[in-house]
């Protein structure tokens, strides 16, 4: 198996598992799923981290983000026909809806006042809703600290 195909298979397995189970797989689960050694998965994880495909909890090989999916609860809950997930931010929350066919609901709240915001998307069209999105960090600096953008 080439490096490219291993990383592709690892990536696809991570997403399939994440969507089916509602949480990302461990290294051992990826290894078992792909019938390869855990050491190969660890190296593949390293490459996928380097190329900003996967984000790990600091100091671990526990997947934190397989964008747009977040392993940990966030202020962006997403309900889709396939299941409910957490998005890392409003961009990713909408990304989950888009990735899973274009119909779903984003449940969030105004970061300032806390008022609930329910954002409905049906057949790839967002229902008219008041509100704005705000990026605090310029694009070129997003990966300086991807947990804060």
């Amino acid at each position, binding site marked *: 198996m080439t490096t490219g195909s291993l990383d*592709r298979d690892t*990536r*696809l397995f991570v*997403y399939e598992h994440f969507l089916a189970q509602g949480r990302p797989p461990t290294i051992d689960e990826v290894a078992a799923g792909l019938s390869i050694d855990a050491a190969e998965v660890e190296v593949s994880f390293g490459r996928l981290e380097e*190329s*900003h*495909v996967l984000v790990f909890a600091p100091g671990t090989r526990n997947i934190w983000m397989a*964008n*747009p999916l977040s392993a940990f609860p966030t*202020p962006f809950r997403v309900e889709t026909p396939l299941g409910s997930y957490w998005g890392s*931010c*409003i*961009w*990713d*929350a*909408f*990304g*989950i*809806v*888009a*990735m899973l066919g*274009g119909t779903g609901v984003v449940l*969030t*709240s*105004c*970061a*300032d*006042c806390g*008022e609930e*915001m329910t*954002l409905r*998307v049906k057949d*790839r069209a*967002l229902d008219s*809703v*008041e*509100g*704005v*999105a*705000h*990026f*605090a*960090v*310029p*694009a*070129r600096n997003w990966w300086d600290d991807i947990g804060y*953008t």
Partner: protein
Amino acid sequence: MLAFRSEAHVDRWCSARRVPRGASFSLEQAWQLGRAWYADKLSPDWRRASPAQAEAVFASIGLVGDFWRLA
């Protein structure tokens, strides 16, 4: 990237946290961004966008200017 009820709420949030104002845009643009960025994420052929490709995506939904430059 956070959601707010209005621009006034963005101003208040930034002021309270002493965070410089970044870039704000409509939730429709945020949806278009999510769609353009992630619709093909489960494809076996998915590839991470290059900086130039990413800037083209931003520009296609009206997100232009120095804030959105990656290169």
